[in-house]
């Protein structure tokens, strides 16, 4: 594998083929827990870890598993990984686990994970599969966090509230109050806010892509800057 192909994998996961903005996969957890930055980050990282582990495992066993049973085996692998992560989160991030609740076990049903297993990991070596899982997970996390930030800022007038659930005591100091005595904007917190917010993010991404295209002069691809914004 050459250097360029890794860059392509990364660009795909973070931007060109972002699981949330382009593939539109895993919408259920994406919309449900993106009400604050920390919730988004928590679920994003759990999904990222699942993607990396499942991609690596699937890639390792890709030559043993016959094609007739590959789907049940992949599902088995993913379900085992998610259950293990769920138990670990319950043990080490108990408070955050309680808030994310049902959405941790539901990572199993995030189609982005089995899609990567089937479309990429089952056909590629371990290292590229790792990079693919990592960047896809990062792309998903970036969208969750961005959407979480938009909804938290608009809905509650804060950022990084309850960061102590993830980072311990230091986290309490991370909370940023943008507006004092903010009365809250209900729409942003409720599910419709998630749909509207995601729609706006997709629109922004498409606009950026369209602008890039219209600049006919090839600007030597400005790498993946802005993807993590």
């Amino acid at each position, binding site marked *: 594998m050459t250097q360029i192909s890794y860059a392509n994998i990364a660009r795909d996961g973070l931007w060109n083929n972002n699981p949330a903005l382009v593939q539109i996969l895993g919408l259920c957890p994406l919309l449900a827990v993106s009400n604050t930055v920390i919730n988004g980050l928590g679920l994003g990282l759990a999904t990222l870890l699942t993607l990396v582990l499942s991609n690596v495992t699937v890639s390792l*066993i890709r030559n*043993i*598993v*016959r094609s*007739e*049973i590959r789907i*049940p*085996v992949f599902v*088995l*692998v993913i*379900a*085992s*990984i998610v*259950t*293990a992560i769920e*138990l*670990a989160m*319950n*043990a*080490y991030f*108990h*408070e955050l686990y*309680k808030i994310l609740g049902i959405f941790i076990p539901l990572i199993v049903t995030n189609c982005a994970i089995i899609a990567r297993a089937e479309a990429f990991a089952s056909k590629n070596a371990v290292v590229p599969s790792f990079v693919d899982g990592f960047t896809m997970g990062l792309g998903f996390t970036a969208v969750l966090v961005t959407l979480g930030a938009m909804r938290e800022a608009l809905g509650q007038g804060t950022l990084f509230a309850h960061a102590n659930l993830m980072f311990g005591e230091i986290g309490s100091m991370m909370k940023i109050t943008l507006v004092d005595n903010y009365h*809250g904007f*209900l729409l942003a*917190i*409720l599910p419709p806010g998630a749909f509207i917010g995601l729609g706006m993010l997709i629109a922004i991404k498409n606009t950026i892509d369209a602008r890039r295209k219209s600049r006919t002069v090839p600007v030597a691809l400005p790498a993946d800057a802005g993807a993590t914004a």
Partner: protein
Amino acid sequence: MIRYMLVTAILLGIFAIAGTGMVAYTFDKTDERIADNEREALLESLHAIVPPALHDNDLPADAITVTSKELLGSAKPVTVYRARKDGQPVAAIFTPIAPDGYNGAIKLLVAISYQGDIFGVRVISHHETPGLGDAIDTDKSDWVKDFKGHSLGNPGELGWHVKRDGGDFDQFTGATITPRAVVKAVYNSLQYFKLHKDELFVSNTTTSGEEHDAN
């Protein structure tokens, strides 16, 4: 052909065993810590309304279950934790349900001193509207802390309603149903306590039943 199918089936079986093994291993490693966390979280929420200094028994362990559909909001058994000091009853902490919230059941913790005053009320879980009914949550407002110190006689039967219904307790702007449900559930818990006060503290530990100082 049969041989091929057999090998495939065995392969699938091996993966099932490996997957289950991994989950079993993780469970074994995290089991104790999860139980500790849950205990810790329970103790923390109980101590928020009954300060640790007021009791010397193991609250999560000193619990019984009681059932009263009318007064505790559920046809299922409801847990009651008992706080004691030097073997004397100090308070009972109910976990009743307010069944008539705006979006279904609201789970509460209601701590009542042996004398019948409220030590404190907390909401454990609810599905009330964010920004309106969720002011019952201590994260959002201090409303629920106003129950402290009230009892059946204070403010009396007529006062145990929200202001809109002629009672003493504030409702929220735009949300009356939620506080109404909580006020009613707390009042019902007090009534249950009055009716069953002595039975509640029996079992496990012997109690004298005499008047004593809760402090």
